């Protein structure tokens, strides 16, 4: 029996909202989550907030405090958290622990972000230190994030014979689903030709195979089992959460590193997303084969093929075949990114873990309409962020 339930979720539609302040977007997501939970702002006993990385709220990264100022300072504890693109999941993880500790019964996890235009660049004010990987990769190699993913994609083509058509098919699938999601930013169905005619960015990855950056916000209300039964008609249980980081000896080429260790003791590919997923599944007491629904971080089409294999959900080299058979689509045996994924939403970096929770909770309740992926009981969300941050969330009904 899990001890924490998600009793309410909220999401601000994704897009570019230059005229709308971030606090308004966050407030709307929070009010939606409270309404969904049939609760009021005064019920919230604590807040785990993702610190906005790019828009900054009032400038100090105190996103949870900004929310309190906005909705009514309630004297409750606030934890402002930063884990780059794993921030939303980190907030969810901390909210879960705040309840598991026995200190609180009802906790809000929340994050909002407004992204600058274009590809993510080296942060202003970074130090020009040749020992810093961020300096080395930008100044000495000219290696943006998309190049790292392209290196993985090119390697996969060699290992498994993945074709450009396979990669394009992931984008076509994502946009087909995103077209049915009123919260998504990109809602136009596309065909492979649209992918092939989009500009090449980092060969073999084209513009239509790489997620954009978006503005968005998301919130979830977590509740102890003690109260969840009385408060909620349809709780979704937190089966396991995790936060993990890279480990010395990992042989992954992790952004922003410009080298990766040899790992002769264990030649298997070792990296943080597998670690985070394994820990969360372990805490849930659930095996990889029991996962019925996945939301994963498709910064590019490559991740959707690569990641499920790294985690043991799919046999190595089988992702393309499963995609072609429709196994990872609506009605398939392992639906992946039924939201439309980052490819349809764009990435609002610090929000994404909670964006996934929103989608997975709605799916587990059977509320996803045309995008409903059967009646899953166990769902997995995964994000990873700069600095070696990894996070995973396992939910069940």
């Amino acid at each position: 029996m899990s001890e924490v339930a998600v009793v309410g979720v909220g999401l601000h539609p994704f897009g570019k909202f230059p005229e709308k302040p971030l606090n308004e977007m966050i407030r709307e997501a929070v009010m939606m989550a409270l309404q969904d939970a049939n609760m009021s702002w005064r019920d919230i006993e604590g807040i785990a907030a993702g610190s906005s990385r790019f828009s900054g709220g009032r400038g100090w990264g105190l996103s949870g405090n900004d929310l309190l100022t906005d909705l009514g300072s309630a004297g409750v504890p606030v934890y402002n958290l930063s884990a780059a693109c794993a921030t939303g999941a980190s907030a969810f993880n901390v909210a879960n622990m705040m309840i598991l500790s026995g200190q609180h019964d009802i906790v809000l996890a929340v994050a909002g972000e407004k992204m600058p235009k274009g590809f993510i660049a080296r942060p202003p004010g970074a130090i020009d230190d040749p020992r810093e990987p961020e300096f080395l990769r930008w100044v000495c190699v000219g290696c943006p994030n998309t190049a790292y993913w392209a290196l993985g994609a090119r390697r996969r083509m060699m290992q498994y014979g993945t074709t450009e058509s396979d990669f394009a098919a992931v984008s076509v699938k994502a946009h087909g689903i995103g077209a049915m999601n009123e919260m998504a930013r990109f809602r136009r169905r596309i065909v492979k030709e649209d992918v092939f005619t989009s500009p090449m960015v980092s060969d073999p990855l084209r513009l239509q195979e790489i997620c954009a950056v978006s503005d968005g916000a998301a919130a979830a209300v977590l509740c102890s089992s003690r109260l969840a039964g009385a408060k909620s008609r349809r709780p979704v249980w937190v089966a396991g959460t995790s936060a993990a980081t890279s480990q010395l000896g990992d042989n992954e080429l992790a952004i922003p590193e410009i080298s990766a260790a040899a790992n002769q003791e264990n030649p298997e590919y070792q990296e943080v997303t597998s670690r985070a997923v394994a820990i969360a599944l372990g805490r849930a007491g659930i095996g990889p084969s029991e996962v019925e629904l996945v939301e994963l971080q498709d910064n590019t089409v490559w991740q959707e093929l690569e990641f499920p294999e790294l985690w043991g959900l799919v046999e190595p080299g089988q992702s393309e075949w499963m995609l072609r058979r429709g196994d990872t689509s609506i009605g398939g045996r392992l639906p992946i990114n039924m939201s439309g994924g980052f490819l349809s939403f764009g990435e609002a970096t610090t929000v994404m873990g909670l964006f996934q929770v929103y989608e997975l909770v709605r799916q587990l309740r059977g509320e996803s309409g045309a995008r409903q992926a059967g009646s899953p009981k166990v769902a997995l969300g995964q994000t990873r962020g700069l600095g070696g941050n990894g996070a995973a969330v396992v939910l069940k009904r």
Partner: protein
Amino acid sequence: LEEIEIRGRAQLWSHTTQHYAAPAPFRFDGPSPYRIGVAEFADGLKVVGMLVGGHGDEISIGQDVELTATTLFQDDEMQDIRTWGFEVLRTGESDEGNVT
């Protein structure tokens, strides 16, 4: 942590061609698009760097590369600002099937 020296030949672990230049502070007066590769050395260490040579030719994973220095740009005093890179060697023998 210990310092280790990398030198000599390695095998190309993967590569990409970057079609838009990375934003400032990156400055590169060489050809666009430019290539980035990962060289895997004999002890398994992987290092990212710009690829030099082999332009116009197909390059493939497993091909031999050699550590070299290459020019990013000339500064105001006409000094070459250099970085490390990997020269793609024409061995004629490497092919993707040989990679382990």
